[in-house]
């Protein structure tokens, strides 16, 4: 079996776009990224299922010309899960927008507190200077 190169390339492009979007801070972009990347992965299942064929019904299509139904069943499951994911992420982004006026994933507060502790340590003799540049303060909504 030789895989379908067009599908594979499209899947790769979709996953690449998805990964780029997931690395954003805004939840709505992450949602887009998950959707696009998820579709890319679903295409991978179609690549894996081999050459396209007729509907896999006994009596309609001869056995050798049937397409493989199993990956399609899996893709269907994945699509249903993606639907639920989208619904949940949209809700969460909206709630975050209600509360904060933006939907960005924030830095952890406790982490910042631990960094403050490190700052307080500067007075001690054994102190060695380490700079933490990522405070999250410079993040702006576009």
């Amino acid at each position: 079996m030789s895989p379908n190169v067009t599908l594979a390339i499209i899947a790769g492009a979709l996953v690449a776009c998805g990964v780029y979007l997931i690395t954003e801070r805004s939840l709505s972009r992450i949602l887009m990224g998950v959707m696009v990347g998820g579709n890319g992965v679903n295409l991978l299942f179609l690549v894996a299922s081999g050459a396209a064929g007729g509907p896999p019904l006994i009596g309609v299509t001869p056995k050798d010309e049937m397409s493989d139904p199993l990956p399609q069943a899996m893709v269907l499951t994945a699509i249903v899960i993606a639907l639920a994911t989208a619904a949940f992420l949209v809700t969460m982004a909206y709630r975050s927008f209600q509360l904060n006026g933006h939907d960005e994933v924030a830095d952890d507060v406790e982490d910042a507190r631990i960094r403050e502790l490190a700052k307080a340590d500067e007075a001690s003799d054994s102190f060695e200077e380490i700079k933490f540049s990522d405070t999250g303060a410079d993040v702006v909504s576009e």
Partner: protein
Amino acid sequence: MNNILPLPVLLPMFGAALTLLLGRRPRLQRAVSILTLAGVCLVAGSLIWITDTHGVQSLWVGAWAPLGVVLVADRLAALMLTVASLVTLGVLIYATGQDEEEVHRETPVSIFHPTFLLLSAGVSDAFLAGDLFNLFVGFEILLFASYVLITMGGTGERISAGSTYVVINLVSSLLFLTALSISYGATGTVNMAQLSQRFAELPGDVTIGIQLLLLVVFAIKAAVFPLSFWLPDSYPTAPAPVTAVFAGLLTKVGVYAILRTQTAIFPNNPLTDLLGWAALATMVIAILGAIAQSEIKRLLSFTLVSHIGYMMFGIALATPASLGGAIFYTAHHITVQAALFLVAGLIERVGGSTSMDRLGGLASTAPVLGALFFIPAMNLAGIPPLSGFVGKLGLLLAGVEVGTPLAWALVAGSVLTSLLTLYAVAKVWNRAFWGTPVLGPLAPDEQPVDAELGAKPMPGVMVGATAALVGLGLALTFLAGPLYGYVDRAAAGLLDDSYLRAVLTGVAP
């Protein structure tokens, strides 16, 4: 006999539907969910007996062999199911004990019960899954339930902690799907037993790619360093019972999946070096993180990550003794970590905070709480004769028996981690339980001064449920002899072909 296999999944699912319908009748809803989980405990307990006396049980659902869904229970799955369902039941009873006011403010009860039962269904499905796709579905069920539980109430703190958790799990789900499609493309099946046979015939570089992809996915769920960063950021803000059940179960489902993949699908390629170093890094780095914390729930989250390293230690060495140690340690750690998080919930009620800067003298204001914290804390650190010591000793002996430099490094690392765990829990003990009381105890009829932060009395049900989980940890200690025999048989079963035979007997290739 194998027809009871779907019950641990089906019972909580029907229970969830029923509790959703009973949303306006809280008492009935509680009764239904407690009965459901008690039923799951019974089924899981009988599975322990069945698998131990009659061997591995498998059921092709709808008789669609070899294409359909297969549920398999071996000794490992039965033990995990039993411990998981007992802990879930304990946590549920604890949750019902939270008083009405708090329930309404933070955990809308009509949603809590169905979601909690779905989480239990997902966990059971992941333990019983005989094919990778069903494992994926089990993971998704439990993840979706956990998304709802971790953001319960939708406060700003929980939404921002939940975002990290949701995004990281979405990424791991995408990776899981990718691994599934690649392995289906390479072998034409997702059934674990068949995968095991067909991967053996494929070139090594194809299988290693798939194996690494699957390991990354499960390592994210199990919080193995360096994929563990998300856990301490997201767990501590959720309500106490939710954190307890997450800490007890969800990471262990990841560990179970790694154990299953390594033994059932790729038995010939244990990747000892990679997993061993990851285990060492997980243990040592996470426990150093725990020491730096001043907030009890975060400290416990870091010890949780750190002790995942012990299980990875056992899995990495892949000898019968080390796998047995890892299984025992997993069972022990589920109970002890859940109990500790429940205690943290009680500390929050009594002391008004879980920050060690604002606590003190709890041992004199609430001596019962002191005892409830002390036992699982010592158990976590591995003080003899508690079960944590038995599990660690088993792993150390297995490491010494292997005797390679890596094994010795792991032995040294785990002893160090054990000591540092003792240091971390002793720090909590010193700062929260000793010293002068910050807030005085309340008389039962006295109203708390500040509803948000003030001390509240501990309801008997919550204390009882916590004590029951602490008792379960002690039971693992008292039953350590028979239980260790059982996990040794479970580990031996992972390494022979009993799993393959049980799934594939009578099935056309």
